[in-house]
């Protein structure tokens, strides 16, 4: 939400999973080392989730986090949202 980095898409055809993973990698690469350290497992799990696609029930949100996050960083996570249609084909 707000200023959080995101990769979004809106198109008539379903988003292929390769493209979605490309977008996810871009987000990961844009993270600072500290941000990535708090989200590395979350990115891996999100990628695994996208690879297992497709998702054809929307709207739907899945949230991924690293295990045992310090309390001060409990908000560090990667969300995957599908608002409409089918994704990750």
């Amino acid at each position, binding site marked *: *939400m707000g200023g959080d980095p995101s990769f979004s898409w809106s198109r008539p055809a379903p988003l292929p999973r390769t493209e979605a993973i490309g977008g996810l990698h871009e987000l990961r690469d844009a993270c600072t080392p500290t941000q990535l350290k708090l989200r590395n497992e979350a990115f891996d799990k999100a990628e695994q989730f996208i690879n*297992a696609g497709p998702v054809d*029930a*929307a*709207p739907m949100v*899945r949230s991924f986090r690293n295990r045992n996050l310090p309390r001060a960083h409990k908000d560090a996570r990667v969300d995957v949202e599908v608002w409409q249609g089918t994704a990750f084909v």
Partner: protein
Amino acid sequence: MTPDSAEYQQRIADALAAADEEALLSAVSDLLEVEPLAVLVVWSRFPSVEDTFFRRVLAFALAKSTHSPSRYLWGPLVDFVSASDTDEATLTNTLSALQLYDEHDDILAAVLGPYFWAFAVRCAKAGRLALGGLCELMVYLAERDVLTRLLTRAQVESLRELLTVAVDQKLAEADATMAVLQSADFPAALTDGTERLDAEKATIVGARAIDETVGEMLRAVLENARSQYALRVQAEEVGGVIEVVSLDGGDATQGRLVVETLERLVQHWNSTIRESIAALAPNAAHGMTTYVLAPAAGSFILRFLVQTSQRDVVSQSFDEIARVASNPEQLSSTTLLSAGARSELVQFLDVLAQKNLNATLGLIDPNLFERPRRRVLHERIAPVLKRLRESREKDRIRHEVAGTLEGANHRQGTFEIQTDTIGSVKGDVPTARRALLLRKVIGERYQFVLDETVTTSPSAEDKRQWILVSINGAAMEDVAEVEAPKSEPNELTTDDVPQQDRLDRIIAVVRLVAQGEELHPKHLGMPNTSSSRRHILYMRQAAKVLGLLTDDASLTPAGRTLAQLPESRVLDFLSVRFEVSVVGRLWRRWARVRDLYHLDPETAEDFLLDRGLSESMAERRGRTLRKWLLAFKSLQK
């Protein structure tokens, strides 16, 4: 704009009315942009909407709202966890909302406790998306030390079995979830969250400051969490399940309901349960006690605690009743409900329709994974009942019975007989056949052929009319031998004593023979093993003891009658057959009692020992006699 602005609510209401999914999603997401907590308002303004897509959008909005400082969101969270949604996206969104919501662990655990297991099982069964989300959530809750307050040891056992699918599919965190479930110390029972719930009352004050309706909904959730816990404990204590009928609409919405309406609903629902269970398992129905639990304060919720040794049968019966009630078009096509159950259910629905009431039917079964809930809408019932009332069906059943002619009037064309098998019958003789009554002697035994005409109307009791077809004295000798021994028996052989506890099995065997089917295990839903075949022999022998089958497993007249009787009269009929059987007569004579209702079931084994049966046989077959007698005696209640 304020979050509860009329504009947004109107857009949502319009989208729902038009079933426009795109407009609905757009309205809710626009509202979220304005104020994330607005989901509380939407949830509280549209509580009874059960549209799948709306629920999915609302759960999505809930997950999106948890970013904000959201201490009041546990109300809708518990609502979603405790509801019976099976839509995978709705469940996934709810899982995400739970994972993202990190306020108030104490209150969340207390209010989620009664529902979490059933919710987890629904997620595990819904599909890959929800199963993956469940694993993530469980690991997260374990990290926060919340999981052991949500699940008992026994519940964890069953979940582990379901989660092996996640391990097989190599879902993220599946292994970690299994490890958590393996190693964490789960309690034998969940603790009552009353203390925490009491402390949380203060929250309601805060919620009311946001919105009065929201505050009221949260209060209801708190009350509900407490009562759900208490109800599960009650069901566990008596070994039963609780069927819940929540009423809304009509006068119920105004907070008042005519006492007579409530009484009729209680009476018809209770009769529906009994009739339905009697059809599924006669023994279960007759060992069953139904309690009406005190309605919850401030609401019209009827709760029926059904104490039974066969919870699965009660649950199965509830499923069918609720399914048909929510889809009344299926009233005439359901085969799982007996005519008696259907008739009672129609009367229950009729009361709802007359009073413009809706009902939500639910079941609390301590052993059940699911928490089924169905909506019954009066607008949907009324036209179906009208159509059903217009279509009355007639069934004609032919009976060949032996009995004593107790009264006859040739001029008026009436007769009265006391039969051996179907009790007392009064009926008519058509003009052309009135001569049948001439030269017949009152008090003499004859063989009668009778037509029973059953006029079935789903909205009323079945009506029966008896017509005499013939009287035949000559055939009496043969039939009487099969129907009931004329002379008092003295000897008891093992052939006279049944070894089949379940009367429903005997009925099934007789019906199979009547349909010309082979007595094969597969026709009785049993595996084709030698053990099954041996059990079928016991069923045949028990049917023979009751005079329903002959030595070569063909039907006796009594067997033919049984096969044609409506479910509600089967047990009564079997009790008469037992009373006149060799073992029934000898037991009564041994106990010096007039009828089977005065027999003590606990004397069965002593009686058989006295009659020379071996100790092991007396013990085993005594158990059968005891169970039969308990079932028959329940008819008196």
